[in-house]
């Protein structure tokens, strides 16, 4: 008996000791974390953090270090909350060569830069599904431009930006036949017809307007992520790719056969020279270019008909392939521009390439062969060194200003800090759970702000109160100020966060627009004051020139509309003060509301299906008498001759308009 209990104690001790080794998530947060992220009520955060919305199609704006959600900017998806993509002014923003597309999958963001540092002008975003790029104005936090990318499928390696915002890039993750051909889906057809393209989208430095300068046509591989060179490597672009096997089915297995895929190195200055010399091929295609005019508050779509393509098989010295282990994902350039970090997502090491060595290898033609005619540089000739045993499934790398790199590991769910100098691992912290991208504020620029690293996680499981089968994704904020990374904060995100950017608030907060000057409003249906309100019939179209000011809509009684009419409510917000938007909604309208900023004009299209009385009202609690801000639309049966009439209060606006 005594012996038996001794054994029991021994077994118990072993089990206990082992269970102590199992990590508990609570243990990860240390004492002073709360004070480091506490931003007192009424105080501002140090950073604006722009976070991609993934399958929500939008971009969210958080404050750091508090993790407070400040705004969701609608970009590629309709947003009933403020009428984006529903009102007549912004519908053109979502027009494509395949019609109106109300959704997309938004993955990566790039802040505009000058000399490799944030300049606070614009934020660029990509659409992965229907290939597009967008530009957001950082004065208004509004999407002001969307450009479609032809000859592309899965616009994933986008919109990474060059050192002086010369170009953003758009590379295809799903290689497709050029010119939208319809071809057979067989292995032979795939190898013969499918291509990848890298589009260089030029940025007009004055207006920010985007246009496709040229497209480089590559063999059919899956271009994954990209980074522009900087400093000494300025003029080059680096993209990771997988599926150099060119498999078209069960890619999970068939794209993972080769020991190495590639980093694609593109000399875009050389490409520019070829374009200037007329070596590009003009190709007829069709894609949409949608631009919001901030004076008319209206977007217009232009249909573009041509794109210039460059073939690296004909135009030498422009594209090189560098072998990179096991289906590389991240491809990141350090702040000095000398090192390119490839992250083979199935590899057990991280290769770091040297730009200097790549140049020497190209000069000495140290090639191991070619891939579909494009020279492949010898792995060892380009390699600076390898980070050994860093973790499982490396994805992305960001940098601080002290020569350290931070790599995310999806499979082992951790961030690993390592030194660029000697490629040794310095520290590792767990993430909760399965980190994808990570972001150090300014970590992709020449001068990282450092201070924090944020993990963007795919899985949250037990991290928050359960909300049924569909759970949120999350972000985790870590301090990187000390030698050891320290978890500070854990908060849910919008959609699925992929890449993010953060900029010092001081760089842009002063330029934020408070309201639109109504004197600069050039909307064609503007009513600049209540005296200009009117209702105009043009056939079966009825245009209502309406105004909103605390706390009434003018006109607020409208008669003479018939079933079969299309009614356009053009609402001008007459306010000229900060934070006084007015909303507008009509009973049974089958689209969304309007949310009109001071000095702006927005249009809601309403097609009444039945006769009757339709109340309309202000949806944004604007003032003490907001509840009184309402009116009626009378819709008469089709073919009736109720005269067109409108008024507000004692003022007979019909009479005013008749003059």
């Amino acid at each position, binding site marked *: 008996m005594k012996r038996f209990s001794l054994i029991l104690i021994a077994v118990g001790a072993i089990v206990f000791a082992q269970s102590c080794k199992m990590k508990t998530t609570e243990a990860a947060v240390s004492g002073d974390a709360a004070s480091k992220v506490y931003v007192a009520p009424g105080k501002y955060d140090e950073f604006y953090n722009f976070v991609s919305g993934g399958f929500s199609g939008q971009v969210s704006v958080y404050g750091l270090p508090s993790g407070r959600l400040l705004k969701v900017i609608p970009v590629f998806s309709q947003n009933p909350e403020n009428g984006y993509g529903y009102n007549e002014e912004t519908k053109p923003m979502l027009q494509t060569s395949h019609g109106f597309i109300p959704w997309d999958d938004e993955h990566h963001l790039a802040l505009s830069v000058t000399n490799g540092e944030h300049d606070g002008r614009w934020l660029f975003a990509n659409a992965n599904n229907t290939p597009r790029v967008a530009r957001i104005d950082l004065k208004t936090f509004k999407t002001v431009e969307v450009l479609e990318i032809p000859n592309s499928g899965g616009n994933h390696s986008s919109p990474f930006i060059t050192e002086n915002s010369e170009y953003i890039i758009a590379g295809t993750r799903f290689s497709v036949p050029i010119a939208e051909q319809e071809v057979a889906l067989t292995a032979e057809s795939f190898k013969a017809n499918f291509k990848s393209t890298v589009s260089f989208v030029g940025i007009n430095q004055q207006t920010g307007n985007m246009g496709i300068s040229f497209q480089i046509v590559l063999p059919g591989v899956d271009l994954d992520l990209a980074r522009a060179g900087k400093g000494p490597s300025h003029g080059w672009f680096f993209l990771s790719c997988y599926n150099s096997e060119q498999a078209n089915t069960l890619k999970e297995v068939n794209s993972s056969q080769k020991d190495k895929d590639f980093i694609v190195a593109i000399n875009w200055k050389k490409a520019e020279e070829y374009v200037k010399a007329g070596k590009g091929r003009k190709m007829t295609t069709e894609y949409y270019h949608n631009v919001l005019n901030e004076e008319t508050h209206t977007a217009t779509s232009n249909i573009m008909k041509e794109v210039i393509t460059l073939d690296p098989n004909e135009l030498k010295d422009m594209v090189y392939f560098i072998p990179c282990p096991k289906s590389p994902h991240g491809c990141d350039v350090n702040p000095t521009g000398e090192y390119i970090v490839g992250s083979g997502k199935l590899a057990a090491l991280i290769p770091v390439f040297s730009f200097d060595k790549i140049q020497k290898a190209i000069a000495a033609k140290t090639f191991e062969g070619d891939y579909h005619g494009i020279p492949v540089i010898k792995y060892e000739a380009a390699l600076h060194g390898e980070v050994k045993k860093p973790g499982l499934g490396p994805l992305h790398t960001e940098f601080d200003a002290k020569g350290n790199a931070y790599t995310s590991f999806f499979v082992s769910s951790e961030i690993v800090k390592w030194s660029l100098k000697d490629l040794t691992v310095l520290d590792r912290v767990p993430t909760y759970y399965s980190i994808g991208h990570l972001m150090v504020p300014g970590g992709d620029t020449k001068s990282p702000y450092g201070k924090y690293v944020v993990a963007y996680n795919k899985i949250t499981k037990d991290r928050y109160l359960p909300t049924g089968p569909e759970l949120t994704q999350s972000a985790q904020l870590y301090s990187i100020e000390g030698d050891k990374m320290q978890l500070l904060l854990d908060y849910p995100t919008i959609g699925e966060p992929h890449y993010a950017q953060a900029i010092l608030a001081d760089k842009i907060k002063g330029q934020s627009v408070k309201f639109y000057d109504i004197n600069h409003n050039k909307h064609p249906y503007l009513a600049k004051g209540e005296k200009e309100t009117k209702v105009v019939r043009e056939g079966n179209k009825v245009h209502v020139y309406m105004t909103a000011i605390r706390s009434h809509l003018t006109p607020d009684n409208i008669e003479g509309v018939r079933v079969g009419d299309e009614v356009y409510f053009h609402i001008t917000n007459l*306010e000229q*003060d900060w934070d006084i938007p007015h909303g507008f909604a009509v009973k049974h309208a089958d689209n969304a509301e309007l949310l009109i900023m001071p000095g702006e004009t927005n249009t809601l299209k309403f097609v009444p299906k039945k006769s009757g009385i339709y109340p309309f009202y202000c949806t944004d609690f604007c003032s*003490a008498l907001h509840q009184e801000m309402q009116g009626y639309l009378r819709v008469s049966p089709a073919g009736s001759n109720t005269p067109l009439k409108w008024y507000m209060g004692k003022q007979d606006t019909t009479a005013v308009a008749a003059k």
Partner: protein
Amino acid sequence: MAVHRYVLPFLFLFVMKNKLSLGGRISIFLVIACIATLWFFPMWRIDLAAPQYPEGIYMNIWINHLSGDVEIINGLNHYIGMKTIHEEDFKEFVYLPIVLGSFCGLGLLVFFWNRRIGYYIWTSIFLLIAAISMYDFWKWEYDYGHNLDPTAPIKVPGMAYQPPLIGYKKMLNFEALSQPDIGGWFYIIAGGILVGVCFYEWKRSKKKMA
């Protein structure tokens, strides 16, 4: 006795052609310089703050126009039925520059005439302008604060919205602070100089007489 005490010195000055001191003469230009600032800086400022306006709104009153958040104030005041404020309604914006300009011109006459009595008269005119202006300002404030539209959406029995002539006042959700602005402070400095110099000249004249 009193008449003797106050009137005689003036008579003496007049008769004896008592001249201004050098300081007195220089002060004329200082006063004119102070008044001149009114063309470059506002004379009065009314600040308003409310829970909805943490950043505050304000109105500046110049000698010839208004500036600041006048339109915002007008927008808010319609709730309580206060008349909207329009520059055209104020004849003062025409008169005031003429009056102050003439006052400065008069200062030059006083300088050349170089008599104490001139300075005293000039100062009296200054004080008269100040008194009339403040009364006029108060009358406008009374008018705006009390003559309210009977159909206004917000009616608080017994409540008037006359802003303070000078100083702080709380009205419903708004706090109001009324005070001189840069130009106004220079006007006050001018007044200080005028009264001070008068006092000095008067003392000096008494000494001479003695």
